């Protein structure tokens, strides 16, 4: 199970020196110390941890190839297994289709990565409309994983993706572990597929949606099964619809995931204006948008202190301040989702804004902004005089 060298993009210039410019996790380096239980014999946890723990000085990294305002600052981020993104701004699954829908309006090649629409083994027609509605500071969606199935996705889009500079991470959903494994097998080795994001937390489907995300054992089992089936970089998307996300995150890390995405939507309901039924055709929907940002920050904050693998933060990002917040609580990258609907150019603008912010603060890389709001490593309690340790 030695990680293969993976060509993320075919259009990109060769970049031998920066194949793995490891993420310098300033504060989260404390995370392994806080782990009480060791790896439970899972696949490759040690290998994946090594990539994040070994810190390379950011100054060694050469500037990226192209000219432009953002190129002076190194925004690259390593999500493990050679999945190195040029910048930490991704677009979230379900909000950006397959990367082609926004056409000329968005310069998709500038993005850190694209997470495509949730993909299942068989085609799915999705839920009955209405499927979306606006709520205060957010929106509810209940698409129900409508997609043409993994084979059709590969056939229709993979060739296009292979010609892109931007890596495409395929979001994978399923009803059973066997489903997940089969979808991932069919994506393995397909040019244009740069990674897998395991969607074990979709709140909008009956079977297989949340069941894997709310139980640490099940989450670990599906991650381990997928890990055995593929050498692709593997992200797992966490659900906030749980009492305590930490054991689940730990189980997923131990099962060999390369990175975590946090968070998926929160389950919610809207009522029809006539008040005689729920508004959405599926009754329940997933809440996203600025309304869930505090919850997302809390989950990232908790998970960052629990696991050593990189965390991709997502939930209500609409401006640079939100990106900085997510970095501060320990995310190494972020996904933009709902805000794209209002402002399709936002993700690309955030890249420039982040680079500008780093320049303004005199930073080589945004990575020194990661984890700054996490509890400090020093024994804080003794500093406050609560207890005394000589």
């Amino acid at each position, binding site marked *: 199970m030695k990680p293969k060298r993976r060509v993320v993009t075919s259009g990109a210039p060769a970049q031998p020196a920066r194949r793995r410019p490891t993420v310098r996790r300033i504060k989260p380096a404390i995370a392994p110390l806080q782990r009480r239980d060791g790896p439970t014999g899972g696949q490759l946890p040690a290998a994946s941890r090594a990539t994040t723990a070994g810190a390379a000085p950011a100054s060694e990294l050469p500037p990226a190839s192209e000219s432009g305002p953002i190129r002076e600052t190194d925004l690259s981020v390593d999500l493990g297994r050679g999945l190195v993104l040029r910048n930490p701004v991704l677009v979230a699954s*379900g*909000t*950006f*289709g397959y990367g082609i*829908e*926004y*056409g*000329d*309006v968005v310069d998709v090649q500038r993005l850190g990565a694209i997470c495509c*629409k949730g993909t299942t083994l068989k*085609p799915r*027609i*999705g*839920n*009955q*409309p*209405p*499927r*979306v*509605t*606006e709520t*205060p*500071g*957010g*929106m509810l*969606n209940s*698409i129900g994983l*409508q997609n*043409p199935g993994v084979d059709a996705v590969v056939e229709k889009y993979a060739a296009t993706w292979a010609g892109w500079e931007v890596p495409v991470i395929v979001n994978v959903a399923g009803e059973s572990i066997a489903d997940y494994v089969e979808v991932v097998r069919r994506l393995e080795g397909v040019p244009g597929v740069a990674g897998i994001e395991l969607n074990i937390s979709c709140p909008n489907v009956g079977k297989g949606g949340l069941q894997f995300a709310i139980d640490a054992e099940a989450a670990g089992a599906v991650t381990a099964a997928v890990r055995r089936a593929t050498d692709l970089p593997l992200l797992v998307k966490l659900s906030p619809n749980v009492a305590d996300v930490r054991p689940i995150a730990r189980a997923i890390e131990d099962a060999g995931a390369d990175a975590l995405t946090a968070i998926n939507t929160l389950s919610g309901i809207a009522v029809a204006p006539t008040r005689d039924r729920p508004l959405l*055709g599926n009754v329940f929907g997933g809440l996203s*948008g*600025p309304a869930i940002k505090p919850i997302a920050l809390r989950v990232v904050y908790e998970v960052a202190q629990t696991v050593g693998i990189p965390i991709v933060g997502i939930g209500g990002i*609409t401006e640079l301040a939100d990106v900085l917040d997510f970095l501060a609580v320990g995310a190494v990258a972020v996904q933009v989702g*709902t*805000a*794209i*609907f*209002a*402002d*399709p*150019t936002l993700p690309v603008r955030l890249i420039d804004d982040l680079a500008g912010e780093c320049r303004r603060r005199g930073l080589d890389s945004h990575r020194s902004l990661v984890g700054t709001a996490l509890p400090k490593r020093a024994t804080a309690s003794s500093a406050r005089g609560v207890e005394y340790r000589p």
Partner: protein
Amino acid sequence: MRLAGAELLETREILPGQWLQTYRAPELIAGARAGQFVHVRAGDYSGLVLRRPFSINTMDPRAGTLTIHFRVVGRGTAWFTFLRPGDRIEMLGPLGRPFEVDPRSRHLLLVAGGLGIAGVRSLADEAIRDGRQVTLLFGAATARDVYPSSLLPDEVEYLVATDDGSVGHHGFVTELVPDYEAWADQAFACGPLPMLRVLAGQAATRGRRLGVASLGRKRGGGRPPPGSPQARRKAFLQVSMEQNMGCAVGACLGCVVKPVSGAPVRVCREGPVFASDELDWQGGW
């Protein structure tokens, strides 16, 4: 599809709670056609996280202006009424696929229910410019909701039905359709789903009731694939559909309707205009 600024030129309440706004957005309407829509961002993002889709009600490519016609139904639409001439907002468009008028069609029947007038209004202009005859059947709940005839071109024959009989025909607008079925070469409709469902039923049986002859298969191939512009052009009735919408470019799959066969189709991408025989009107899922 472009993302462009739009400057408000004129805003007025043409009916109780219904507004007509004129915007200057030359880049946006270059190449726009009747039946397409724009996705407009309300400025107050803190609460309004989604754009609002509006049919292009009318457009004037030479002046670079377009109008939208909407009813205030919530905080988003209310926000637009607070805008004053000179204010700038941002629009994404033109989006969706337009009405397909057969070049041979002389008589067009437009059927609108309530605010559905905004969906077919620009087609009236386009058809009259092309020298076709247009009859507009308009249905509303009561007289105070009836679209002012002063806002229509003089050449349009305009008939009104109201549910309470306060003006025009007493009853549903669909009851006026049989009188025009034989006259019309093509029909175009926009309005509430029950109205469209009845119209689709009428259109499905029209050929049989009127004894329209099918002239056999043409040389050079069979029927155009369902959903293609050619198939829509051949259909008697085209409908402009409405659905809660997210991205409006086809990425989020929020705004789907069910076709007769196959996966759900997106109102924003495959629509908003569909041939009536493309869609499953029974509502099952």
